[in-house]
């Protein structure tokens, strides 16, 4: 995989002296740097470009997060959510997946790193001490890929040792990359798990333009397994296309040829879903992509989703195939209704978001 290198770095003067800023600038000698007191002009200039989304990915903006770093996952009440918390240290991603929801979600097209991590640690200290009984499942991969910039930021080297000493935290690094260099020698004390978003090789090639191949992702997972990380895998988005069955079976076959199911905390599944505004963006930016031309209906949360019987069919088959490798593996659905859960798992095991959160807390806690 080609590691991300920006064409330009913009540093908000407020984070000029931050550790993360130093890391990034040291790792990118030769890349032009501009210091600005107000980032809005720079952001506006990118917005004015012909393809702002593409242009934005070439600019790495180091700024401060003025809001909270830790937020609940923006799930909706209409579907069952896993009760995750998001640690928002960066936004945007360079991997250029055609279906990426960030294309219609983010206002700022630049690659942003919130470099005021001193504030982030203070907030975490405060938050985690408030309820020492609860398990905090925290992820960094909601508005970015958790590891895509790690060779520049060294963020993992800061956050993993911090969480390694906490009792009530499971940090999940979600990625599509093989950018695991920083993880290998780190002390994580079982509090960090690494998870990969997987798909069929065909989908990876056609729709996840700059992400590593499925084999490379599995290989990276294998290396993490060897140094004692718990693993997770997310078949999200599941893509329905002629030949999906063989495609996903092949991925599972390759996965479990390298990965011992006992090291897997969970596997999630979620059918492709997108805000209606994303469709014209995909049509414009990825004219070869056909994934948006399947049968979608408006979901109860306003996002377009595959027609329900398609989702149920895909989840049921996937579950069956996964269960063939290990019937005890924790498999869950991402943002689905109780009805779909019931039809896929053939039992009314997960009635609401609290149920699912509890299952995942318990599973994640079995280090």
């Amino acid at each position, binding site marked *: 995989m080609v590691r991300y290198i920006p064409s330009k770095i913009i540093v908000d003067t407020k984070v000029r002296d931050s550790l993360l800023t130093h890391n990034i600038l040291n790792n990118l000698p030769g890349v032009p740097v501009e210091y600005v007191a107000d980032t809005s002009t720079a952001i506006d200039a990118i917005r004015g470009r012909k393809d702002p989304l593409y242009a934005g990915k070439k600019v790495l903006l180091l700024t401060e997060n003025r809001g909270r770093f830790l937020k609940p996952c923006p799930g909706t009440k209409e579907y069952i959510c896993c009760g995750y918390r998001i640690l928002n240290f960066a936004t945007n991603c360079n991997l250029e997946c055609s279906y990426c929801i960030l294309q219609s979600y983010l206002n700022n097209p630049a690659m942003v790193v919130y470099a005021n991590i001193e504030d982030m640690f203070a907030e975490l200290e405060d938050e985690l001490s408030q309820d020492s009984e609860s398990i905090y499942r925290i992820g960094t991969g909601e508005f970015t890929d958790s590891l895509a910039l790690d060779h520049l930021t060294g963020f993992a080297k800061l956050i993993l040792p911090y969480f390694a000493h906490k009792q009530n935290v499971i940090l999940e690094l979600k990625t599509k990359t093989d950018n695991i260099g920083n993880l290998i020698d780190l002390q994580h004390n079982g509090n960090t798990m690494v998870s990969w978003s997987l798909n069929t090789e065909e989908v990876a090639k056609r729709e996840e333009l700059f992400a590593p191949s499925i084999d490379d992702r599995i290989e990276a997972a294998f290396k993490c397994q060897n140094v004692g990380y718990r693993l997770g895998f997310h078949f999200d988005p599941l893509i329905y296309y002629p030949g999906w069955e063989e495609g996903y079976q092949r991925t599972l076959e390759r996965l479990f040829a390298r990965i011992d199911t006992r090291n897997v905390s969970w596997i999630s599944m979620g059918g492709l879903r997108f805000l209606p505004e994303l469709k014209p963006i995909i049509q414009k930016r990825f004219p070869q992509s056909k994934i948006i031309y399947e049968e979608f*209906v408006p979901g109860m949360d306003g996002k377009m989703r595959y027609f329900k*019987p398609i989702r149920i069919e895909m989840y049921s088959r996937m579950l069956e195939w996964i269960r063939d490798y290990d019937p005890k593996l924790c498999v869950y659905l991402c943002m689905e209704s109780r009805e779909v859960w019931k039809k896929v798992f053939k039992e009314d095991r997960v009635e609401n978001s609290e149920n699912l959160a509890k299952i995942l807390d318990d599973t994640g806690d079995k280090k």
Partner: protein
Amino acid sequence: MGNVEYKQLDIKSIDLTDTTFVITYGFTLTQLKKSIEKIGILNPPLVKKKSREQYSIVCGYKRLLVCQDMGIEKLRCAIMGQGIEEKDTFLTGLFDNLSHRVLNPVEKSITISKLQKYYSGEVIVKKFLPLLGLNPHYSVLDRIKPLSGLDAKVKDAVVDGRIDEGAAAKLLNFSEKDRELLFQLLSVLRFSKNKQNEIIDNSYDIAKRDGCSISDFLNAKGLKEILTDSDLNIPQKGNRVRYFLRKLRYPKIIKAEKDFMEVRRKLNLGDTIKLTSPPSFEGDRYCIEFQFENMDDLEENLKKIASIKHNKEFKRIIEG
């Protein structure tokens, strides 16, 4: 505007094919002609010298066309100073237009295309879209900009409101042949704005999904039969064409709708009980609604409703 000089010009010296500063599109000259015949030209056209002998038109394009048509040979014109930049000359013409009328969508598109020569997308969005009465968003720019590149008959249809501007812009995503077919279909069936967009979107999606051209399915037998059926009026044809395309675009959803309607029909609930499925079958709430006049009526309806739960086909639909 700098110095303006007024002069009697030979109309032949004004190059009416040079539309560098012209944004006018979609007009008839009848009214203007009547007025000029009666009271003449009160406001002289504004021109700019382009060579020793020739002038370009800046404001008053229609007035000049009428004069030419009426065989007027000489006309008093205002001539712009030579030092004025091309950009400012264009803006003079634009502001003159905006001061006394609302531009139609094609004229807005022509304006945007011409402004691109002088300004960045950001400036056009922020400064000029509001002046044109449009929201300052890139999506608006993307929707309006392509209109000027459409075939004349589509542009004309946009100007007289027969075709929605958004739908028209989407036509540019098709090949010339497919564009022509779709335009004909929309013109014949006189769809509302939303339905025009539905027809275009579904056609586009089917063609992309199946890797075929629009003509492959618009020339299909089933569709031709609908269009040539003399027993159907235009709205009926329109509805059938929409259903035909929906069925191609969403075969599974249409089949589920059909199966549901069939099962509902077999439940024999009569006219007073209305059973509806969740929208797009996404939620899990079905709805039963009925009206009654008296207690017997109520009991009768409740009995019918109670019988639903024994129906295996309905159970299969609900429980999967």
